[in-house]
C-alpha cells in the first residue's frame, strides 16, 4: 500500500473537496462506495463470504472444530481470528510484509466481537468440550477501508456459518465421546446477527469522511474506527494514524460513526436475508464472474 503516494496538489484538492462535501469520486462525506457480497462460496468451510468494496476484495471462511474449553471459562467456546494479507493484493505484502497489518486487523476484530459474542452458545458439554470457530480472513485486493470491509465480510461469513448437530454422546468413564452427524445438511445455523461492524472515519482537514479510499487515507490526519452493533452500541474504538483530535471532534466522529454503523448493519442484514431467502437453486459464481 505504500506504493501509492500523493503530491501536495492532489492532497489540497482532496482536502478542499471534503470541505465542500464533494469527494473526488462524487460521493458526499458519509457515502459508501457500492458493496457487493456473496455468501457460501467456499465449499469445504462451515461458512464463507466474499465482499468487494470498490477494489477491496475480502474472502472470509469460518471453520469449526471441537476443542476443550479453558479451565477458567468452562461454559464458553472459543473463537480465533486470523488475517492473511495475500501478496496478490500488493507486492509489499510478500513474505512477512503484510503481517503487521494482519495482526492489527485480527486483534481489533476479536476485540470488537468479544464483548458482543456470547461464547456460551458454542458450549457442547460444560468443562469438557466446546466448538472452536476459526475465522480466517484473506485479503485479496486492497482499495482502501480494509477495516470496514473485513468486518462486514466476517459478519456475513459468521451469519452464514452453521454448526454440525451432535447426534449422540456417550460417556466412557471420565471421557465423553461426541458423535457428529454425518449428514452435511443436519446443521443448526449460528446466530451472529448481533455482531458489530466496523466504521472507519478518516479525519481530513476539519471534517471526516466515511469509507475512505487509499488516497484519502494518505491525506487524512488520522482515522477513528468504531465498532457498532445493530442496536447502536459501541463495542470498540481504535485510532489509526499519527494525528490528534479535539475532544469535540472526537465526540462528533463517534456519534456519527454509530449512526452510520447502524445503517451499515441494517444494509448487511437485508442483504443477508435476501440471500437466505433465495436459497433455492442458488448458483455460486465466486471469481468466475
Amino acid at each position, binding site marked *: 500500500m505504500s506504493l501509492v503516494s500523493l503530491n501536495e496538489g492532489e492532497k489540497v484538492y482532496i482536502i478542499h473537496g471534503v470541505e465542500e462535501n464533494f469527494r473526488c469520486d462524487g460521493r458526499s462525506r458519509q457515502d459508501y462506495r457500492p458493496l457487493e457480497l456473496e455468501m457460501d462460496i467456499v465449499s469445504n468451510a462451515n461458512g464463507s463470504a466474499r465482499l468487494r468494496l470498490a477494489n477491496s476484495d475480502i474472502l472470509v471462511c469460518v471453520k469449526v472444530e471441537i476443542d476443550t474449553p479453558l*479451565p*477458567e471459562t468452562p461454559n464458553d467456546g472459543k473463537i480465533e481470528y486470523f488475517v492473511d494479507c495475500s501478496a496478490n493484493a500488493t507486492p509489499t505484502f510478500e513474505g512477512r510484509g503484510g503481517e*503487521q497489518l494482519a*495482526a*492489527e486487523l*485480527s*486483534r*481489533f476484530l476479536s*476485540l*470488537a466481537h*468479544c*464483548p*458482543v*459474542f*456470547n*461464547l*456460551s452458545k458454542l458450549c457442547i458439554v460444560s468443562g469438557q468440550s466446546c466448538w472452536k470457530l476459526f475465522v480466517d480472513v484473506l485479503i485479496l485486493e486492497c482499495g482502501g477501508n480494509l477495516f470496514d470491509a473485513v468486518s462486514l465480510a466476517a459478519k456475513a461469513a459468521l451469519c452464514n456459518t452453521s454448526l454440525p448437530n451432535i447426534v449422540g454422546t456417550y460417556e466412557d468413564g471420565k471421557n465423553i465421546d461426541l458423535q457428529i452427524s454425518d449428514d452435511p445438511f443436519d446443521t443448526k445455523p449460528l446466530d451472529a446477527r448481533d455482531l458489530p461492524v466496523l466504521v472507519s472515519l478518516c479525519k481530513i482537514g476539519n471534517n471526516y469522511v466515511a469509507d475512505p479510499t487509499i488516497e484519502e487515507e494518505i491525506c487524512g490526519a488520522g482515522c*477513528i474506527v468504531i465498532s457498532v*452493533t445493530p442496536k*447502536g*452500541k*459501541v*463495542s*470498540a*474504538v*481504535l*485510532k*489509526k*494514524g*499519527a*494525528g*490528534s*483530535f*479535539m*475532544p469535540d471532534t*472526537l*465526540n462528533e466522529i*463517534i*456519534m456519527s460513526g*454509530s449512526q452510520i454503523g447502524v445503517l451499515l448493519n441494517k444494509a448487511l442484514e437485508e442483504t443477508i436475508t435476501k440471500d437466505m431467502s433465495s436459497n433455492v437453486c442458488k448458483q455460486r459464481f465466486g471469481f468466475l464472474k
Partner: protein
Amino acid sequence: MPTNLYRFQGPEGTIPYQHYLIDKNNTKLTKIATALMKNERCDGRDISAHRNLCIKTGIVTQAKGSAYVEKGHTKLLCSVFDPKEVPNKVEYAKTGELQCEFKFATFSCRQRRNYTRDSEERQLCNEFRRAIEPAVCRGEFANFEIQVNVLVLENDGSVLSTAITAAGLALMDGCIPMYDMIVASSLGIFKNTILVDPTYDEETLCLSWTEDEENRGTVMLAYMVSLEQITEFSQNGSMDINMFPEYVQLLIDQNCKINKLVQSAAITDVIGHFESQTTD
C-alpha cells in the same frame, strides 16, 4: 508454543496452579462486583479516585531518558534512547520515526507470559506509538529514529495509560523536543458505574460478557493538556453512544489532574539536572 532456541525452555503444556483456585478467584470477583454495586471499591478508593502515582525519572542511567511509574500495584519502566539513523533505509523521510517496544515481563501478569511478542503486546505497542507520536516534534530529526521501550514489571490494570504517561516523562527526561507533555488515563465501566483507573480485576469484570444491555467496558484516552488535543482513544466493551461525551470529559478531567503531578515531577527532574551540572 513456539520453540525458542535462545532460551531455556521448560516442558510444554504447563498449567499455573492458580487454575485450581478458580473458585477463590471467582468469589473474589463477585465480591468486587457486589461492592461496586454499592459504589465501593475493594481497595477502599472512591470510584472516582486515582490510585497513588509514584514517579521517578532518570533511573536508567544508561539510557538518554527514562521514567519509572508506579500506580497502585502497576509498575513499569520506560526508557528513551538518542535519535539514530534508521538502518537499511534509502528513502528520504521528512519526519523522524518512533520505534517502540512494549514488553510485559514474563512474571508481570496472573498467567506467565511468553518471551516472544504476542498479539496483545503488538496491539498495545501500536496504540502506545500512536499516542506519543503526535506529541514529539518529529520534524526536528528527519531521517532519524528514536527508540522508546516499555517494560511492564507488574500489571494491575490501566497499563497502557500508565505507560503513555511514563513515556511522556521519559521523553522529557531524554530532552527530546515535544509539543506538549502527554498524559493518559483510563476508565472502567461496570453496569453503568464509572470507575476511574480500574485495577486488573476490575478490568476483567468490566470486559466479561453479560446478557444485559447496561454499559460496560474500558476506555483509555491520551491527552495533551495545554494543546487540548486527544492523541489516542481506545474503547472496548459495549456502551451506549450517548455516554461517550461524558466519558471523554471525565477522562480529560482526570488527565488534567495527572498532568499536575507529572509537571511537578518534571520540574524536580529539571532541577535535578541543573544541580548535577553545577556539582560537576
